[in-house]
């Protein structure tokens, strides 16, 4: 008597779990596409934000090949803890390659990884920087998302940005976010790695 009751209870629980699992799988299948689209749309938007002059962004076999070797390239420049996730050619309305957009992730954020996108033109001009994912402290590191910080990288031709706490005086100096030096350094490191990679690609004879 008691055992049949336990079995019945267990069976009901099992059926509920099964139905829940199947339902979840179903919803997962339905939302898979929209999630992918949302991510792609967010990326496209970020690319346009960092490279307003470009019309579309395309893959390039040589560029993809270079991205695969990013570790060796960045090591030469002394960048560690940074990965180049993706690089696409930026083309203008006429289809001419005018530069590239990169997705760069740094592990050196205060609250974990920070992923940025970066637009670099053929003549080494940084066109813009946007933050894709960031998980820093609200009110401090999160301010990296504000235009005031991001615009410091915009439209500048430098080899390397340097974070300063005393107010930037030169083109290559970036004002640190107050109370969030780690975040400022992490983002700047990612930008520098991106610039280094883009320049190295041009140096390798990448058709830009």
């Amino acid at each position, binding site marked *: 008597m008691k055992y049949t009751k336990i079995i019945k209870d267990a069976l*009901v629980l099992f059926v*509920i779990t099964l139905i829940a699992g199947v339902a*979840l799988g179903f*919803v997962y299948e339905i*939302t898979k596409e*929209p999630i992918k689209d949302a991510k792609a749309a*967010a990326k496209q938007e970020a690319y346009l934000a960092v490279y307003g002059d470009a019309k579309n962004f395309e893959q390039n076999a040589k560029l993809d090949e270079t991205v695969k070797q990013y570790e060796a390239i960045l090591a030469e420049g002394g960048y560690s803890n940074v990965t180049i996730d993706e690089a696409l050619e930026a083309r203008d309305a006429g289809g001419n390659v005018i530069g590239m957009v990169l997705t760069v992730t740094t592990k050196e954020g205060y609250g974990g990884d920070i992923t940025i996108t970066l637009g670099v033109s053929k003549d080494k001009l940084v066109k813009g920087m946007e933050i894709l994912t960031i*998980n820093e402290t609200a009110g401090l590191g999160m301010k990296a998302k504000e235009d005031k910080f991001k615009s410091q990288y915009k439209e500048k031709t430098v080899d390397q940005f340097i974070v300063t706490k005393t107010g930037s005086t030169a083109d290559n100096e970036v004002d640190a976010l107050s109370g969030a030096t780690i975040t400022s350094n992490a983002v700047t490191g990612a930008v520098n790695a991106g610039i280094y990679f883009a320049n190295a690609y041009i140096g390798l004879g990448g058709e830009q």
Partner: protein
Amino acid sequence: MNKYLERLFNGIFKENPIFILMLGLCPTLAVTTSASNGLGMGLTTTAVLMGSNILISMLRKAIPDRVRMPAYIVVVASLVTVVQFLLEAYLPALNETLGIYIPLIVVNCIILGRAESYAAKNTIGLSALDGIGMGLGFTIALASIGAVREIIGNGSIFDKIIMPSSYEPAIIFILAPGAFFVLSILTALQNKFKLKSATNGVNGSVTGCGAHCAGCSSSNNCSAINGIEEAKMVANNAEKLVKEKEAENNDSLKSNRE
């Protein structure tokens, strides 16, 4: 119709989960760095709460009493995952900001608490309204805590700067300590106004977020909504144990001396 309306407003005013019942502390503190974050979290929780109340009310006759807690957890966890997919697909920015606190809605005691104390005993319609009411109450509370923190800590509300530029924001209020301070003051105010009726005024109706919901499956007569109270009971039991042990040690010491 009246009793339905009554249900809806019960959660918003009479039994507001945060201000009156002090439920769901963790997200209350963690995501209220701005008014819009609080609002987003509140609405997400409302959706889950409504869904779980409806489903559990529907299943209330099918779920055997002994396995009800695991069954509720399965239902709530699936709903939370569904909501997470929807957010990821249609509101990716919100999903990004709330992050890990969305799956953690599963262990928010408001959800299991309402399932246990209301949805398991009432009809679908009433349970749905109860869920919406409680959820909206939670939302209003979260959004207002978020608003207070955002105004003091960032000089803005819903991302619009409202304070004059001469105002230097007290950043501490959107950092972790500020969350504790704001909630502490709110709780103190609540104690203050309850003092007249409360017998001793000390932590009058202060319970807490989901400490012990699933633990209830082992005992029958426990209400799932008593987070901190439950923890206090455990603390008392532990204290008794410690004392007994000390007494035993003393006894054996004495007998040794003798």
